[in-house]
């Protein structure tokens, strides 16, 4: 076997740290969240929020996994009567909806939340309170949709809920109202989170981290966030139309009264296909961070990978109708979408070949668990990509669509390009978050169980699909050529479940006493590995400067700075006008900081210890531009989120009075959120 178990070693010296006596303690006092219940509910720290996102999303993954296990048990043999059709419909609808909306995207938001400020050398996200609000809204919307499962009225229309089956005539009851309202509630969270990432990545990179030096994970998070902002409105519109049709007698989708069932499909997939890239691009960004570390060299074709990431995000908007080839569209339209859908695989091909080249030209292959998951990821990605190109071919798709072939394809894509990189990322970054390593031994067991289980579950689905088995059937007749393969898939599903369980055991063991990680256990190159594990609340004692794409592999002296690379004087006021973000983001000129700073020999805008301060820089070159003062912890985002939840529950039960009350609390919480604290925040002092 080719697995190399040698412990990774750090290949290059780290940045020489600056050391200012007393500064760390001062920052600690400013940034610390008290360990009380109030502190926990009010925290706006991106690391806390990121961890909460990850834990919550992973719990949703396990819930949806249990639903999948129940379905596989039902399908283990033909004409099985383990689960009623009604329950089965709710199971596959909840499985898909949970995995797509409450696991696949939020888990990546968790990693991005934790990692973006650390990777760009900032002390928090641009809007920490909005960040807390995004999390609470994500959690509460998930609770809202899961409450339907407890009440036995879970959504039963599949995750894409085609009308008219989901309208009030064919789906009376609250099932589809839960779906529409919980999802609408979630879009608020997702959109707010995306805006936060965009602004943070654009404006809060540390000095020197010009666009060309941004880590590739920033490119993928940025692309994804922009795609969310453009894709979400289509989903929101589709859901609002659905609720209006169901509750208030409109006819957007009602064919009897001039509505169009296909309008739903267009709106849903205009959102839905970009969403596929939204849940895989950050994971490819993770791959572009992890693979170079274990090959001990910079990624090959950094610029191409960044370009490929952005172009995938853009082309992802032009392929939605390939979900609709069988609807009777004109041949000219299907031909166009067929070509576009094949074309969108080219940027993915570029990414894969960049990783292959990086592995080919490695300085050393370190086959630790994260790297094993990366190799598995490339394998599954290629299989999912090949079956994707096959379904992009219109005539073939007419056989494959809505059959188990599609189930196989979408699981290879989502398990391969979301779950595998996410597990790799846990093995890779969890030591940063907890300070403790995961077991490599258990990790290898984890990898092989999951890899074998996933392939055993999903590969036979290609074959049963081509043998004519439609998806979303709660049972099937014997003798059609599907029996043995379905039994195999069920066995695979349970092996997959063991794989996930091994991962959870590994995490628990690590938390209870894994080996200490130290700041940079893998010898990686990006800025998050510069600080202690786990990082202090304020992330960086001083805001770092970078002079390359791999700052930790290209050592330089922090005090003197690289000659010619970074302007050593404070930014000129005319060139870098002071600006303020919102009510809480106050600014001070670098000169004022330097006046009160005891460390005048350091470039002054890097100390930032007068309150929760961090640096704003210019969009392209990341030149220092202004000092941002970030808001204190507050409970208002949670109250706002609860009030919104109240409004959605009131809408669910058609209670206008309660909706009005919840609406009023919403407005009050927004006021509370934005209320300036007298004395704490001086008015912006702009340089004359």
């Amino acid at each position, binding site marked *: 076997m080719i697995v190399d178990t040698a412990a990774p070693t750090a290949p290059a010296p780290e940045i020489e740290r600056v050391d200012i006596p007393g500064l760390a303690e001062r920052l600690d006092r400013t940034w610390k969240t008290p360990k009380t219940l109030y502190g926990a509910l009010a925290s706006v720290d991106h690391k806390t929020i990121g961890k909460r996102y990850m834990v919550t999303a992973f719990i949703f993954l396990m819930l949806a996994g249990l639903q999948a296990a129940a379905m596989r048990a039902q399908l283990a043999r033909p004409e099985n009567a383990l689960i009623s059709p009604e329950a089965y419909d709710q199971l596959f609808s909840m499985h898909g909806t949970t995995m797509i909306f409450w696991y696949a995207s939020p888990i990546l938001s968790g990693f991005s939340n934790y990692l973006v400020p650390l990777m760009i050398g900032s002390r928090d996200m641009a809007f920490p309170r909005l960040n807390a609000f995004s999390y609470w809204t994500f959690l509460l919307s998930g609770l809202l949709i899961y409450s339907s499962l407890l009440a036995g009225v879970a959504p039963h229309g599949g995750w894409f809920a085609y009308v008219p089956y989901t309208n009030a005539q064919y789906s009376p009851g609250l099932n589809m109202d839960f779906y529409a309202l919980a999802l609408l509630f979630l879009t608020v969270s997702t959109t707010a989170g995306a805006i936060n990432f965009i602004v943070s990545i654009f404006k809060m990179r540390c000095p020197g981290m010009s666009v060309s030096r941004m880590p590739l994970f920033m490119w993928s998070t940025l692309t994804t966030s922009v795609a969310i902002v453009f894709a979400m409105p289509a989903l929101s519109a589709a859901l609002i139309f659905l609720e209006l049709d169901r509750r208030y007698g409109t006819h957007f989708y009602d064919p009897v009264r001039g509505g169009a069932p296909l309008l739903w499909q267009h709106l849903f997939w205009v959102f839905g296909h970009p969403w596929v890239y939204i849940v895989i691009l950050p994971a490819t960004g993770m791959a572009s961070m992890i693979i170079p570390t274990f090959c001990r060299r910079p990624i090959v074709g950094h610029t191409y990978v960044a370009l490929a990431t952005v172009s995938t995000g853009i082309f992802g908007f032009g392929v939605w109708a390939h979900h609709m080839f069988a609807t009777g569209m004109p041949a000219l339209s299907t031909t166009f979408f067929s070509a576009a859908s094949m074309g969108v695989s080219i940027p993915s091909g570029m990414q894969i070949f960049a990783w292959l080249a990086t592995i080919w030209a490695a300085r*050393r292959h370190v086959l630790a668990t994260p790297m094993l998951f990366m190799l598995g990821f490339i394998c599954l990605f290629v299989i999912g990509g090949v079956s994707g190109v096959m379904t992009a071919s219109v005539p073939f798709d007419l056989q494959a669509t809505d059959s188990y072939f599609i189930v196989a394809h979408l699981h290879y894509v989502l398990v391969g390009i979301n779950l595998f990189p996410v597990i790799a990322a846990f093995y890779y970054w969890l030591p940063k978050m907890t300070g403790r390593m995961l077991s490599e031994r258990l990790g290898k067991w984890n990898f092989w169980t999951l890899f074998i289980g996933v392939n055993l579950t999903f590969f036979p689905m290609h074959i049963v699909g081509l043998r004519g088995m439609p998806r979303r059937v709660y049972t099937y007749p014997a003798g059609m050529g599907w029996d043995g393969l379905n039994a195999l898939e069920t066995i695979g599903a349970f092996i997959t479940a063991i794989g996930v369980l091994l991962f959870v055991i590994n995490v628990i063991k690590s938390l209870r006493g894994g080996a200490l990680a130290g700041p940079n256990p893998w010898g990686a190159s990006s800025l998050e590995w510069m600080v202690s594990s786990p990082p202090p609340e304020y992330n960086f004692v001083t805001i770092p400067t970078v002079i390359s794409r791999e700052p930790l592999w290209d050592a330089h002296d922090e005090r003197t700075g690289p000659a010619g690379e970074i302007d050593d004087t404070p930014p000129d006021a005319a060139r870098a006008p002071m600006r303020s973000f919102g009510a809480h983001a106050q600014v001070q000129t670098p000169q004022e900081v330097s006046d009160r700073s005891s460390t005048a020999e350091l470039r002054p805008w890097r100390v930032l210890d007068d309150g929760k301060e961090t640096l704003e820089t210019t969009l392209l070159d990341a030149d220092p531009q202004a000092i941002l003062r970030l808001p204190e912890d507050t409970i208002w985002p949670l109250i706002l989120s609860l009030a919104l939840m109240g409004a959605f529950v009131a809408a669910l039960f058609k209670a206008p009075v309660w909706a009005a009350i919840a609406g009023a609390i919403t407005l009050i919480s927004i006021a509370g959120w934005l209320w300036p604290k007298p004395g704490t925040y001086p008015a912006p002092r702009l340089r004359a």
Partner: protein
Amino acid sequence: MLPQLRAIYDTGPSMFATAGPEAQSLATLGWAMIAVGTIVFLVVMALLLVPLWRRRHVLSEEGPPELVNERAWVLYGGAAIPGLILAGIFVLTLGTMRASLSAGPAPLTIEVIGHQWWWEVRYPEQAIRTADEIHLPVGRPVKVILRSADVIHSFWVPNLAGKTDVIPGTTNSMWLQADNAGTYRGQCAEYCGMQHAHMALSVVAEAPGQFARWVADQRSVAHPPADSATLTGERVFLSSPCVFCHQVRGTPAGGQIGPDLTHFGSRLTIASGALPNTRGNLAGWIENPDRIKPGTKMPAIPLDGPQLLAVVAYIESLK
């Protein structure tokens, strides 16, 4: 209970067990893409795995990283070569689409209407109305007009052609042609509610002479009862609520909501392919439809034992 449905069909419903020109060209395209995809997969896996053990002992972390021809790897390997392969697949796709658009001479037209959860089949030129079973003459192109009575369904007979969605408010159409005589299974492919799993149909492709005889049989009104058992059955049937939904041409029963029963006895399956058409299965179905298809729109009709047997005898006599 495992009904021996498989015995009814000549092949499994695989897209590669082709019985007509359309399915044949789709299968050819499918095999071509599977072959190309397999080669692509093997090449990528070789590029991924070979360096891992070939270079294992010669690598060194000293010195600068090896220079790599970025353009060769990423632009040629990752974009240009895949682009050429995709262009080839796209040309194949266009060729297959072009072949499938052309219709043959003298088509037969049938209408298929999707219901929750059964297929209504009409032959407008022959004035035939039946359910869950399509008969085709071998070698003749058939135009299928697709409509829905309620939600979206999808019409799929993998041995003969790809799917076409059946959408309310829209009329879709597709072409079927069977070149090999035989019985093929079709099934609804778009999730349409609780009994989506039990919404199958049979396609019987037969020689033109046999097809003509079938048409003649189906056009006729129901055969009158020939013995006392079926006569009793007819009386019970006509006085039961069955007639509100079901039609038996030649009798007062004229319901249009459910499947036409005029020639029920000639069909291969009952309850849209859920069970083979036998007396035992039919009795079980009438007695408690919800046990076989939970959620079905067909209610249980309160009949005592002798009445049930008589009705079963009557309906099965409707050949």
